């Protein structure tokens, strides 16, 4: 059986950043396994700009951003296997993978970094009634067909869901000559970034209908039209508010789900809210030596944060390989409360933490003029006013070692929102 110090599952932005960071931390024997024919992951189909503002202080397109990391990985001579599907990760970190050239093969890894990304929530998950014709695409599939394969997927379009890919595709399809009639969002707020709503909808006069959903899909062979209806506070359609839109295409941008089939089958503890594994502040999962980062851990809005998180996972995987297993000395759970839906990480090892630990989270509703607070047991240690908090924008707080050391008896860290 082949052996490698670190096996990285996925060669998208997370995998690349993790690999480069692990190499820079001194681990030579790294292998990236990528199921697609190219490195870079979904960034390759994101041909719009707006990537890298935090990381590179400039606006790059998706492929350009990916290229920066691919170049770094190439410069570091990190080997990768493309067109390779990981089939299984065993609890003793034997990675089973498959491709045309090597067939089915196994690798014994000392550490594994999970970077499988996420997938789009399909129509079925929403129980949208109606026919099942051609012309219903998840936004990312349409994006791939347009931007990579170069085809037109529709001429008259309705988009359900205001996730970022849907917003980006509204603009993209408009630029390609399609008529995007409306973007409907079930919730009373958008799931996407504010900047995307402005740049992709407002600038092109595409209406965004909040608290609306698709109640019917017409067309036996190809979509011929859809019916939207307004929904009440219970998210159920309000009779009498139906509006018919003639269209040949329905794009869905109704949420992203971390792709954790391998993680679950490896028996790793999962988090119900994020859909990703539970991790410590070193981004290590419940299976020692297996780390997770990027969208497989929790869905991000900005790739810059994926890269940052992945670099941390890569460094910690390297440390694990170099120093061996280290049981958490004092794992303190982080709890999300009062408007905060989850935190990543879910535990903080106060005895072994870095000088700074970034805790990322999302809120469950739109809040104006609220405080984000952190409590160490009963005591409030952070209290920061935010003009707007929205589910579509990931938030973060930074906890410092210095701060934590003042609480040797710390049992519980709580992240919450407060009105005052």
């Amino acid at each position, binding site marked *: 059986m082949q052996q490698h110090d670190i096996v990285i599952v996925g060669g998208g932005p997370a995998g690349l950043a993790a690999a480069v960071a692990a190499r820079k931390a001194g681990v030579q024997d790294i292998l990236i396994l990528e199921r697609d024919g190219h490195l870079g992951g979904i960034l390759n189909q994101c041909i719009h700009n707006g990537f890298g503002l935090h990381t590179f202080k400039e606006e790059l397109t998706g492929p350009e951003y990916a290229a920066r990391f691919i170049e770094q990985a190439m410069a570091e001579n990190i080997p990768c296997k493309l067109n390779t599907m990981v089939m299984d990760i065993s609890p003793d970190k034997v990675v089973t993978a498959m491709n045309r050239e090597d067939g089915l093969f196994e690798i014994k890894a000392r550490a594994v970094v999970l970077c499988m990304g996420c997938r789009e929530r399909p129509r*079925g998950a929403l129980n949208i009634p109606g026919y099942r014709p*051609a012309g219903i695409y998840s936004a990312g599939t349409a994006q791939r067909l347009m931007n990579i394969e170069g*085809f037109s997927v529709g001429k008259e379009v309705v988009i359900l869901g205001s996730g970022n890919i849907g917003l980006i595709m509204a603009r993209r399809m408009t630029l390609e000559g399609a008529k995007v009639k409306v973007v409907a969002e079930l919730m009373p707020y958008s799931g996407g970034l504010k900047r995307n709503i402005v740049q992709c909808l407002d600038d092109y006069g595409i209406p965004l209908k909040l608290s609306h959903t698709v109640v019917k899909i017409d067309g036996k062979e190809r979509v011929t039209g859809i019916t939207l209806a307004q929904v009440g506070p219970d998210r159920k359609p309000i009779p009498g508010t139906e509006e018919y839109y003639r269209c040949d295409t329905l794009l869905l941008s109704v949420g992203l789900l971390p792709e954790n*089939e391998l993680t679950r089958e490896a028996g790793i503890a999962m988090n119900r809210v994020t859909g990703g594994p539970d991790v410590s502040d070193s981004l290590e999962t419940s299976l020692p030596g297996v780390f997770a980062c990027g969208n497989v851990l929790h869905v991000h809005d900005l790739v810059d944060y994926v890269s940052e998180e992945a670099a941390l996972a890569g460094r910690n995987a390297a440390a694990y390989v170099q120093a061996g297993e280290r049981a958490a000395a004092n794992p303190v759970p982080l709890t999300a409360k009062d408007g905060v839906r989850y935190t990543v990480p879910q535990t903080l090892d106060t005895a072994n933490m870095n000088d700074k630990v970034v805790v990322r989270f999302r809120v469950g509703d739109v809040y104006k003029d609220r405080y984000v607070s952190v409590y160490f047991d009963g005591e409030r240690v952070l209290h920061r006013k935010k003009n707007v908090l929205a589910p579509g924008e990931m938030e973060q707080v930074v906890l410092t070692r210095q701060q934590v050391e003042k609480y040797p008896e710390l049992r519980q860290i709580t992240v919450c929102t407060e009105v005052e």
Partner: protein
Amino acid sequence: MVPRAVFHGTLFLYILLKILIDRTAKKRYTDNRKRKSGVTVLKYDVVVIGGGVTGCSIARELSRYQLKTCLLEKTEDVCSGTSKANSAIVHAGYDAATGSQMARFNVEGNRLMGELSKELDFDFIRNGSLVLCFDEADRPGLDALLERGKANGVPDLQILSGDEARALEPNLSDEVVAALYAPTGGIVCPFGLTIAMAENAADNGVEFRFLTEVQNITRDGEGWRIDTNQGPVTARYVVNAAGVYADVMHNFVSEQKFTIVPRKGDYCLLDKEAGGLVSRTIFQLPGKMGKGVLVTPTVHGNLLMGPTATDLPDKEATATTAEELSDVQTKAQRSVKNLPLRAVITSFSGLRAHEEHHDFILGECPDAPGFFDAAAIESPGLSSAPAIGAYIAGLVADKAGAAQKSDWNGTRKGIVRPGPLPKEQRAALIKENPAYGSIVCRCEGVSEGEIVDAITRTLGARSLDGIKRRVRQGMGRCQAGFCTPRTMEILSRETGIPMEKICKNAPGSEMLTGEK
């Protein structure tokens, strides 16, 4: 320099010659066609109308005989109507009224299914079924079902107490007070069954004509003339297995009219994470809560729940409705505890070919000799298909005085599935054909090799849905999000259909609206 006039003359001659050659080639190609009153007519001994499970079963059984048989299907593939959207259940046979055709063919079909699944290599599991009773007041109904089952010849039926039922199925509702247990109940892959029978029929000489819609049937001497959108066809015998359109076909030739009312049923399919919630098929005893819905594992490891029952005038109305989907979920929760409704990955509806007498219409039409009905095939039609096929084919063969073929081969091997194989065997397979090492559909682990096989084998898939029904590409939790572009490319490469003409199913369902 060639003078212009000579050049033009040569070009003209060339074109003329080319037209003549092409026409001769076309004539050769249609050598089995005969010119009759100016139109090309295809001639067969038997024409089967409809490529659903019933039509394909009849076609396979007819392929045993020395008969020139053709199956006409209006869509681009077999198994694309009622046969593709149903409960995928092989009923034990206690439901139907004793003495009915339904009872007879269900019990017989159930008995045949096990052996057939081995001969034709499709998925069938005899997982057993339970009919739940939630109220002591409904007990007589359960006892009646037991008695009817016994009278119908269903083996090994027994009534269990609520606790006994829960011992078998720990996730059954605490409300269950008793249950009828039928160990012979089963689940089947309806696509696998139908496609296997069709392929085997084709391998044994039955011709399949797709995108061929029957528009009229009239007497033609001793036999029949069938007008289709692709031109006329004649046959000595016609078998009507047209599903929800069986009334239209029948009424072309018979004065004893009947009406098929499409009875729609909506279903929800759950992710494989919920597939293990129950291992048997769970029915509800019809009671004061209505007819109830079933909850069942599928042969692929998902969990299926449904159907509703709504009569509709439209034979194509396969649209689900919010009310019915919600009804399915509410009722299913009554049977099984902790149903993870957020794990629904898709919903669909199918149309039962219901006729008011609620029994199969099987046999030669009394006022139209040589025209055989296999009509009003609603539940338990899937279960009954193997038996109906043998019965109708036997009637036709008797009438025709046809002898059996000596070289008939009733076995068929399905598409190789590397996924469930032991690692060593799978590795060997990939070495032999590297396309088995390239995964296209992640969720269901379907390789390029399997997709190519689905396209290139007998009656190969010509649409994305055709591939999906053969190898499950796109049937998983992402519902074809990732694999659609790649599958389209493979289909285009293997068939020569340009990308912008690739369809989800029938023409008109093109995936793309413009080329590169």
